[in-house]
């Protein structure tokens, strides 16, 4: 039995599955707009997410170059910045207001638009149907809406960069009262309104996407694809979606209350404030309430960013070690553990807000507990490589880099999760180093591994390997050079979100180190542009695939044609007979057995 699904487009309406041949015929009649713009094909939507995400990534990274210039060389001026930023960088020096706006936008863009939408949107969309054997998402239409809500959210965020008072500037966490009161900062004016609208739309996009991923994984698997035969990528995307669906609504409520406080005179977050020369009428609100609502999403959010990378790294490591992923079930159980605990640790971001110390203790316990499933994953990845036959494709290198970074960043989490240590480290560069390594770099490495590995599936061509290697080594070394020293700055107590340290006796000693970090950051930035160039040129000029399974993989996506049409498989959807990691001798000289191959006589299922 193959699944019957209905694919609807504004000018095509047909059912396919049994009538796949019929489908092929009709496919070619789709108008350009429906095929590439308002497309409902999960593969096209995936590319839309990817390319939008890449554009945002370049913008977000460019912002970091600007503010790193300020941090590294506070006494110099850079006339080129004035060209880009106009009066925000008069005479080539950033104004403090705009410095904070850039930092805020950098965080928002990278956390939400790149590493949430760009990552999960790209790979959940691409791989869920292809790897579970479905013709498309459960609801292709909702899937399309998910992208377009993201697009509109992007437009709002982009527009906010150009309003006269500048974009939001209270940090990516936008804590009120700072973000609630126009008097408190320039960025809390129109820029903040646009930020809120954009984020609200973003939540809608996330929910549409997430619900779709969940129902697709639960309902649309091909014959024989039991849950425990799903590749770990799918498990990871599934839990990512669960995290998002359960936590984004809480952020939404937090944002709505903030909109009310800003515009309709409510006092959810405001109490006893004297600002701009007058006492405000608000009494009885709690500024801390917002932080609870924000971090109830905020912490799961970091795992929303992390899990897809974990899934893809698992897949890439196994494939290129020519060895099954070690501890498949332990990997799933640790994903479950991380997902559950991710909801129970949010207040570790709030140890020093005046929260009850008893509550703090509970959160210490739960936070350090989450290190256990994380450790299990690391050990399983390492053992996957043990006695393997390792092929260093660029994807494999990035997957290994992912593991390296995840270890480094996870370990610093152990300092921060212990409130008695966090009391000194909170809001210093130690936190910056922690989350950039574990979330920023590591998640990006997962994403790069995914892009290099599945580029052939996306475009039917390879990316250039040599550039891939250059990209990997510079980025890997550069990331450590940038973030490793930041731990030291943080341990010395150097606060984050400072525009200039030169007036501080305790912190100005790091001036030359900051300069060094900025220089490396710029080098790494340009290396990423090299990647972008490789990506776009390879779409048109990359070496063509001659074999539909170039990496010798076992999973279903590599059983589709090199250029799969809308519906993925031209004929019947293949049936699945075994788990996804049978990297063993198939008896015919190959070292892997695809999931579609029936068990041989006497062969034991995993």
């Amino acid at each position: 039995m193959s699944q019957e699904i209905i694919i609807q487009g504004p000018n095509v309406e047909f059912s396919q599955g049994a009538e796949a041949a019929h489908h092929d015929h009709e496919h070619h009649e789709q108008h350009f707009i429906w095929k590439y713009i308002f497309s409902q094909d999960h593969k096209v939507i995936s590319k839309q997410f990817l390319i939008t995400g890449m554009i945002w990534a370049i913008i977000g990274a460019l912002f970091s170059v600007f503010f790193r210039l300020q941090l590294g060389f506070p006494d110099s001026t850079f006339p080129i910045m004035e060209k880009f930023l106009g009066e925000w960088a008069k005479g080539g020096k950033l104004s403090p207001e705009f410095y904070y706006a850039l930092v805020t936008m950098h965080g928002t863009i990278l956390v939400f638009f790149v590493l949430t939408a760009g990552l999960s949107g790209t790979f959940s969309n691409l791989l869920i149907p292809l790897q579970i054997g479905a013709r498309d998402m459960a609801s292709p239409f909702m899937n399309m809406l998910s992208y377009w809500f993201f697009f509109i959210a992007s437009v709002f965020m982009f527009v906010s960069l150009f309003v006269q008072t500048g974009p939001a500037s209270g940090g990516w966490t936008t804590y009120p009262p700072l973000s609630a009161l126009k008097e408190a900062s320039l960025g809390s004016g129109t820029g903040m309104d646009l930020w809120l609208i954009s984020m609200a739309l973003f939540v809608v996009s996330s929910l549409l996407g997430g619900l779709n991923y969940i129902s697709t994984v639960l309902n649309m698997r091909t014959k024989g694809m039991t849950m425990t035969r799903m590749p770990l990528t799918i498990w990871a995307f599934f839990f990512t979606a669960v995290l998002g669906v359960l936590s984004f609504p809480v952020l939404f409520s937090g944002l709505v209350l903030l909109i009310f406080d800003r515009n309709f005179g409510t006092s959810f977050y405001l109490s006893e404030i004297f600002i701009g020369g007058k006492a405000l009428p608000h009494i009885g609100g709690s500024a801390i309430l917002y932080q609870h609502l924000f971090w109830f999403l905020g912490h799961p959010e970091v795992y929303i960013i992390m899990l897809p990378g974990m899934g893809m790294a698992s897949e890439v490591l196994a494939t290129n070690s020519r060895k099954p992923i070690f501890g498949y079930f332990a990997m799933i159980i640790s994903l479950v553990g991380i997902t559950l605990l991710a909801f129970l640790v949010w207040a570790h971001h709030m140890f020093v807000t005046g929260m009850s110390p008893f509550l703090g203790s509970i959160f210490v316990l739960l936070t350090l507990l989450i290190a256990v499933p994380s450790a299990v994953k690391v050990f399983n990845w390492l053992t996957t490589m043990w006695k393997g036959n390792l092929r260093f494709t660029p994807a494999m290198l990035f997957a290994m880099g992912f593991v390296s970074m995840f270890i480094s960043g996870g370990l610093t989490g152990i300092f921060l999760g212990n409130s008695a240590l966090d009391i000194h480290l909170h809001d210093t560069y130690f936190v910056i180093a922690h989350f950039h390594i574990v979330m920023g770099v590591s998640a990006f490495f997962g994403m790069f591994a995914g892009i290099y590995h599945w580029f052939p599936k996306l475009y039917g061509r390879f990316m250039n390997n040599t550039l891939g290697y250059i990209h990997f080594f510079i980025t890997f070394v550069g990331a450590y050079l940038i973030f490793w020293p930041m731990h030291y700055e943080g341990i010395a107590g150097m606060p984050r979100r400072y525009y200039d340290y030169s007036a501080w006796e305790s912190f100005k000693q790091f001036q030359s180190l900051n300069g060094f970090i900025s220089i490396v950051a710029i080098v790494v930035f340009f290396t990423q542009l090299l990647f972008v160039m490789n990506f776009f040129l390879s779409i048109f000029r990359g070496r063509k695939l001659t074999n539909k399974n170039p990496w010798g993989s076992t999973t279903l996506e590599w059983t589709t044609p090199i250029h799969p049409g809308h519906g993925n498989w031209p004929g019947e959807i293949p049936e699945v007979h075994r788990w996804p990691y049978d990297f063993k001798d198939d008896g015919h000289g190959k070292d892997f057995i695809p999931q579609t191959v029936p068990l041989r006589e006497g062969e034991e299922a995993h």
Partner: protein
Amino acid sequence: MSAFITVALIVLVFIIIYQIAKASEYTSIIRGEEKVKAQTNRTIAILLVLVFILGMYGIWVCHNYLVDKLLPVSASVQGDAYDSMFNATLVVTGIVFFATQLVLFYFAFRYQSTEKRTSFFFAHSNKLEILWTTVPAIAMASLVAIGLRNWLNLTSEPPKDAQRIEIVGKQFNWIVRYPGKDGELGKRDFRKIDDANNILGLDWTDKHNMDDIIAQNGELHLVVGKPVQLLIGSRDVIHDVGLAHFRMKMDAVPGIVTTMWFTPKYTTTEMKKITGNSNFVYEISCDQMCGKGHYSMRGTIVVQTPEEYNAWMATQQPYYAGNNPSGAADSSATPAAKTPAAKDSTKATVTMR
């Protein structure tokens, strides 16, 4: 113009790199792909080893270069406990870090693909999983135990004889209030704030306010060896009292009063000797993003011997006397909602209202 040239140059360099990379792809096809692939694999494995060795060397260099700047000299009794816990955690995580990174890179080199090698089909082992679930769990449990012990100490009631001083943040400086001779901080109300003559909104109907001393220059005077409890407030947005040398930090949140207490160990003069820095000064850094002047929201602490402190205190004038407020005698003023903890917080726990 120069910008244009720079951009053009960068683009040119990119194109050249791309062409070279592309050419290597073609030559590999000519020279036999499998052979080139094997060679590349070997080169990459060697590069990975190099990266590891250089990386470890780099960590060593970086550490030597920065080790003096790591945790600054701990200047509070609580800070000593902090430092020993920090070092314990550093040792545990350090060992795990080196061991796992070593394994990662060693495996990469040792099991690099060769023509002869076939991978070993090894899919799971419950023993191993149990091993590496329980060991981290035990390690975490011990760290939690140390952590909670310290945390409970840090957040415990301050000693009875602790000095109580209020510190209030506003965009972008700190205001410090001492209780004066009566040892009591009077009530204040944000609606009574007037930047000209009542900067904290002291309620002049409360006698305890008459002798309170306010320092607007963000300078906090403490007595060495004497526990101090800070009552922390904010006039506008959230700030944070960050005291790196005392290993202390607490948010200043409008509408509530937060507290922290600690015991300074060294006077400022002593610290100048210890650090060898004649400009040494204890700094209060605002550690919570609070607007465009966040980075300049700097306060200082002067830790003195009791004699020095008393001498300094004798020169201070109560805020009331200096500002002779017009509405002071108006006893019919409606009793407005007060900022409660300013007076009542004999409770020393971190309070959240």
